């Protein structure tokens, strides 16, 4: 019951943020310099023709009317038409988002599998060689331009060694698995399509590692500092003092409390990965939202750019909501407040 109330409260608090986001994206769309009508009709347009199109497009209405129309459109799933693909933006977003989801989730899994153990090792061997090594590794991860790491991985593992494919989601000529979630690895697993599954995973490796570089650095650092705080706390000293074996102290007492705060950072890390996916997808020709956005930018396709922006912001908020809810269930203190 408490959990339901908590989630309901968080959902309620999301409403003003969502309205704010829509105002901001609307404002950005309105800063496009120049007159959209002129952009469409070209330099030879007559004043009458321009005026008629402006009236037709609703550009002469007051801003709040235009905003109202924009909001009404969003609620009906109408995000305008992509000038590049000539399809409704909403359809394009549905088509491209599973690939981005698959990539970011894969990157987050790598992040957790590497970041948390590295952070724990680093903290438990504070100032020893393993710690120094991990800290430099994490620092490099945070400072690393992901798109550059992607290029290096392409150079080495694709062009030089040829062990991993360098672009796309599947080998050439392979047809995607039956559509269930749109994420090829998941769909292939569900339909038992092993060749496709293996190909999909192979294609995920390089972009996934690239995308996770920054977040691995973040999570490693956070885990390390949080574990250090816990390891220096009185109850851990007490555990040592009463003669508990080191491993039991570390894994029994410290781990749970040390890793918990890291969860709060997951939302932020996911946001980073979502943002980074734009660049990483461009490097690996990964047909997701990021590449769609980059293409849209190059073709001055604003409805598409704004559609991606809005969708990613909403995804980011939802992820944060999920993370908060998880934290609510894990941290007993929150349940009583």
């Amino acid at each position, binding site marked *: 019951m408490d959990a339901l109330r908590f989630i309901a409260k968080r959902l309620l608090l999301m409403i003003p943020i969502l309205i*704010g986001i829509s105002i901001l994206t609307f404002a950005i769309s309105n800063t496009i310099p120049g007159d959209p009508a002129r952009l469409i009709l070209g330099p030879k347009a007559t004043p009458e023709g321009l005026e008629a199109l402006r009236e037709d497009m609703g550009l002469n209405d007051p801003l709040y009317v235009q905003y109202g129309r924009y909001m009404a459109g969003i609620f009906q799933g109408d995000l305008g038409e992509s000038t590049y693909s000539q399809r409704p933006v909403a359809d394009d977003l549905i088509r491209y988002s599973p690939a981005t989801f698959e990539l970011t989730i894969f990157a987050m899994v790598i992040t957790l599998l590497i970041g948390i153990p590295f952070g724990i090792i680093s903290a438990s061997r504070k100032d020893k060689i393993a710690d120094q090594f991990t800290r430099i590794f994490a620092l490099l991860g945070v*400072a690393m*331009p992901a798109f550059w790491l992607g290029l290096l991985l392409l150079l080495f593992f694709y062009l030089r060694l040829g062990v991993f494919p360098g672009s796309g989601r599947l080998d050439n000529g392979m047809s995607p698995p039956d559509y269930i979630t749109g994420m090829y690895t998941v769909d292939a697993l569900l339909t038992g399509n092993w060749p496709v599954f293996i190909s999909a995973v192979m294609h995920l490796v390089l972009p996934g590692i690239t995308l996770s570089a920054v977040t691995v650095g973040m999570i490693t650092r956070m885990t390390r500092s949080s574990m250090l705080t816990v390891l220096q706390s009185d109850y851990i000293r007490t555990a040592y003092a009463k003669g508990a074996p080191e491993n039991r102290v570390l894994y029994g007492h410290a781990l749970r409390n040390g890793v918990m705060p890291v969860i709060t950072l997951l939302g932020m890390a996911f946001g980073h990965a979502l*943002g980074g996916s734009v*660049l990483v997808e*461009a490097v690996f020709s990964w047909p997701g939202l990021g590449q769609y956005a980059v293409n849209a930018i190059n073709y001055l396709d604003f409805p598409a750019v704004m559609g991606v922006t809005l969708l990613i912001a909403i995804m980011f908020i939802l992820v944060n909501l999920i993370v908060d809810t998880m934290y609510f269930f894990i941290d007993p203190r929150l349940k009583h407040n």
Partner: protein
Amino acid sequence: MVRRVVSSPLTVLGLVIVLIIIVSAIFAPAIATHSPTEVDLLSKLEAPSGEHYFGTDEVGRDIFSRIVYGTRISLRIGLLVVLISFPIGTILGAIAGYIGGRVDQIIMRITDIFLSFPGIILAMSIAAALGPSIENVMLALAATWWPWYTRIVRSSVLSIKHSEFIEASRALGANPFRILFKEIIPNSIAPATIQASLDLGFVILSAAGLSFIGLGAQPPSPEWGAMLSNSREILREAWWAATFPGIAILLTVLGFNLLGDGLNDVMDPKQR
């Protein structure tokens, strides 16, 4: 304080990197061995050598010289973005924290909205709307960066707002403007300043990313992100074109990071 900075080898490393970048930017014409933009088709796609330290690109431009000149672009971006967003964020944060109530709520809800976009995505859409140019990328980054300073400054203002020296100022009849600028901001700006020095690196990184997808610097500008974007076409033939500009970005971000972390340790009163 100087001794504390020097006592940490990583901070010294950061300082050295930052100094190298500044020196390269100032003395770029003296350091560069070639023109950063001159095309020389006779020596295109040359591997690194004594003549071209970092090799040449597909039209024979010297990559080393381009990277050296690129420090000017990157430093300018970093500094300008921070110089725009820092005062805006600081003043809004100080106002929010000091005045409180409804003003605080409005300002903080606005920052929440900006922070509910992944930074690079918001900057991307603003830059895309303004049109591809380096100035627009700077504007876009400044527009996404200020809320961080607002948050940091607000929380440090909240921690000193009820200090007796602020009350003393009010008892003397100082107006809110004076209290804000003479008493509150000078005493709550330190954490945000440290963040700003860290951010110099991250701003440069983000700008390079936006240039990489075609939004920022346009060819033939020797901007590192644009150079990397360009290198994709010749990845098979010229590994050096994809390697060195990236190292430059990495080192720059690393340098400002190490310096900022070092400053943080020095300024943190708990460690004094």
